[in-house]
């Protein structure tokens, strides 16, 4: 049996190799999934950019090669068309969620996405902090990163409200819904508050945190959000240990501890397994945004189950169709390594066919009949999942991304403007 360290190294490297294989070398765009015809996702590009420093440190890629890849990507985004036209790459410094992998133009009539732009910029800034050398390429990386960040008009995205919209479409304007309740938007607010050119007012952050729910659930006090990725995404870049905003100061907790408890909630829910799905248990959980078997109703063992495709599953209120995201446990490694590793090992031992090319799928569902003996398994791999695996395994092993971003002046400034104090700040 592999040691923990070897297991994690294998999974991390295989996940990183997704980005080596699924990137268009002409423009640096990365496929949302490795299924045929998949578009590029700007969020996946953000994760990709963040994995290169890790890969260089681990010796999986040379520094020069990584720098070259990053430079190609940043040049593309800087030079790509920005405007109100429906097939631009972006507008007001933001980018459309999905782009054509070849042309870089908007595709799938996707929205101009604030959160996905924030994830892209997180990667851009990670790269700019790491590549601090004097070569022409590394200087260019830093200059382009700063220019891309400064170009974003966060104020425009506020649309005269106290909090920001989730997105915008040229056909219909700002999306109806904003950010209610705790979610992955801490990263977005930190970047938006720190902007040297178009910063959000400091009041926009408490306007969002005033929608939080602090709950005692399954015996744990937690800032509640159903899907596990909410408790992980911002944490991929920001080290929340010991730093607290006003909300967390009042609750005498912090977002790292909160994610640890949220991880336990996932396990508790799986133990309870209210819908009696197969496979759930103390070491088999992971309810988050991910692929699913279908978007209809299936009959299994005499019962009708409503199934979902790609959706944000959450605990304890669902939606829950029996689909487990095995990568979600790994992404909680820094918070609670013991149970995260136990869950990862359990899935790999009992469902070995989920591992393909050394990587975990977006989801699998032992309750539904599917494409193999153990039920349904998502086809291919999703870039977001592989990205969070790389970053969080590395943060657990060496804290590299956290260390880099602690040195990013924008991250520090944004956290302080949001009211964070203490710890490494």
């Amino acid at each position, binding site marked *: 049996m592999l040691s923990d360290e070897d297991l994690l190294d294998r999974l991390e490297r295989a996940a990183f190799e997704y980005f080596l294989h699924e990137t268009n070398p002409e423009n640096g765009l990365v496929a949302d999934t490795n299924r045929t015809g998949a578009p590029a996702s700007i969020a996946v590009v953000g994760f990709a950019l963040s994995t290169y420093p890790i890969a260089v440190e681990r010796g999986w890629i040379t520094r020069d090669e990584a720098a070259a890849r990053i430079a190609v990507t940043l040049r593309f985004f800087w030079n790509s068309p920005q405007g109100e036209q429906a097939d631009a790459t972006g507008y007001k410094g933001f980018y459309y969620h999905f782009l054509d992998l070849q042309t870089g133009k908007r595709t799938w009539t996707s929205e101009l996405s604030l959160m996905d732009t924030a994830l892209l910029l997180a990667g851009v800034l990670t790269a700019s902090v790491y590549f601090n050398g004097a070569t022409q390429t590394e200087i260019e990386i830093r200059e382009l990163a700063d220019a891309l960040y400064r170009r974003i008009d966060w104020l425009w995205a506020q649309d005269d409200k106290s909090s920001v919209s989730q997105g915008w479409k040229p056909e219909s304007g700002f999306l109806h819904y904003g950010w209610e309740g705790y979610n992955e938007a801490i990263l977005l607010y930190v970047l938006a508050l720190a902007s040297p050119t178009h910063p959000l007012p400091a009041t926009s952050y408490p306007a969002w945190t005033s929608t939080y729910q*602090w709950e005692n659930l399954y015996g744990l006090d937690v800032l509640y959000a159903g899907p596990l990725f909410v408790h992980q995404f911002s944490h991929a870049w920001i080290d929340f240990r010991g730093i607290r905003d006003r909300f967390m100061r009042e609750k005498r907790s912090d977002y790292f501890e909160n994610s640890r408890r949220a991880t336990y909630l996932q396990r508790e829910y799986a133990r309870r397994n209210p819908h009696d799905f197969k496979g759930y248990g103390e070491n088999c959980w992971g309810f988050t945004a991910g692929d699913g078997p279908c978007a209809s109703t299936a009959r299994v063992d005499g019962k009708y189950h409503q199934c979902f495709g790609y959706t944000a599953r959450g605990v304890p209120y669902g939606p829950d169709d029996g689909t487990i995201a095995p990568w979600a446990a790994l992404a909680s490694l820094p918070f609670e390594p013991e149970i995260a590793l136990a869950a990862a090992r359990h899935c790999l031992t009992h469902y070995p066919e989920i591992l393909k090319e050394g990587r975990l799928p977006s989801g699998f569902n032992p309750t539904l009949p599917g494409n193999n003996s153990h039920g349904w398994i998502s086809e291919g791999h999703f870039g977001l999942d592989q990205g969070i695996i790389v970053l969080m395994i590395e943060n657990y092993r060496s804290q590299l991304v956290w260390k880099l971003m602690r040195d990013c002046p924008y991250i520090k400034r944004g956290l302080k403007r949001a009211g964070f104090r203490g710890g490494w700040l």
Partner: protein
Amino acid sequence: MQSQLLPPPSLRKIPDSPTLLAEPTSMAWRNPHPAHQYNLVILGGGPAGIMAARSAAVLGAKVALIERDQLGGTCLNTGCIPSKAILKTSRLYADMRNAEQFGAQVPQVITVDFAAAMARMRHIRARLSRRASAERLSTLGIDVYFGMGHFAGRNTVEVDGQLLRFKKALIATGARPLYPTIPGLAEAGFLTHENVFDLTECPPRLLVIGGGPLGCELAQAFCRLGSKVTIVEKEPMFLSQEERDAAQILSGALARDGIDVRLNTDAVSVREQGSEKFVDLVSDDYRSTVVVDQILVGIGRSPNVENLNLEAVGVRYTRDTGVQVNDFLQTTNSRIFATGDVCLEHKFMHFEDASARLIVRNALFWGRERLSALTIPWCTYTDPEIAHVGLYVTEAIRKRIPVKTFTVPMHDVDRAIADGEEEGFVKIHVKEGTDKILGATVVARHAGEMINDITLAIGSRLGLDTLARVIHPYPTQAAAIKMAADSYRRTRLTSTRKWLLKRWLAW
């Protein structure tokens, strides 16, 4: 989407539809000869007016009650009672279809008898209306007048050509449906709660515009009775005032029933072709068209403030919010009070009931009871039900009250598991650091019954610690409330207290 008032019921043409019953003819009633003076004249014979009349008459007051249409108002005739009756039948059909989950066999053929369901509803309505009949009220000493009443002078009301002198008056004229000004809607025809219960056939395809309590309840009921239902709501979630988790659970439940749920969506135009109605929908940049047989509109209600001559007696009002009242339910004319849907933000029968009693004390006996002192719960009777009392978390935060919520998912409650009714939760919000209950939301099959424990606690200023000492029979679903209270007690067992207890027990 703009909205518009429907004209008052007596002026409205009944839509010419073979599937709707004609309005029942009103009973023959002769208005009494007015008394010399009334202690209380009440305009409006709905639940609020009837409760005020009864309360005042029992105490010996001389009371006149004026109603222009049907006694019992919206709740009895076109609201709470008929909707609950058909919800019950629809729930039965849903349970039959899900029988396997309860270890029972699904009947081979499930045929919905819509006419029987509606007949049962009408029978129940007729039975309950006997309590609110003019004859019955007269035996209590209440003078009942039918007609359009309005203020004729500073202390007189005119009805049916007669003048009634009053010492105090109460406006309880209720509200009527709003409907959106969607091009083509009026021409195509539509239903509201005022005529949907007159249907004799279940519409094969139904569009419900409005995701508030009425829209959600009837969408679910008609779906379970056999309609193919689409529900359209312009906000990102149903019941926009409710907790997000509650709205999410409801959304999932409606989708599971087979309802086509369209949130963030507006209906923008309607056209009729033959007997079919084509409705265009827009959600951001996505456009679609649904084809239905009936459209049900439930986007809100508008207070009945017209034709009362309120200006003549100095009663201030607006068409949107109704009659202006203070915390004692007095209007801007201190001798005239108002209650019910004509002035209250929360348009619930039990609210009207409580406020009517308050008004009788304030109007006739120099009472100084405040509306704001009442603890009023409410419930949406979908499946699962959603009930709430007190503050929401966002309200508490706006008032700068630190809040913590104790949550018990129903899938942790033994009786809910045994009943196969695990969907939902009990959430009790307390002021952090104390056991003071600020509010609660219950989502459960019987949430409307369960909320009463918490309403009693808030109204009686009992904290969560006290609720933990209330013994609930086992097994009951209401035990979820005690479980939430027990969770609170466990948080009081701090590490210091545990250490002290351990030292104590070490002897």
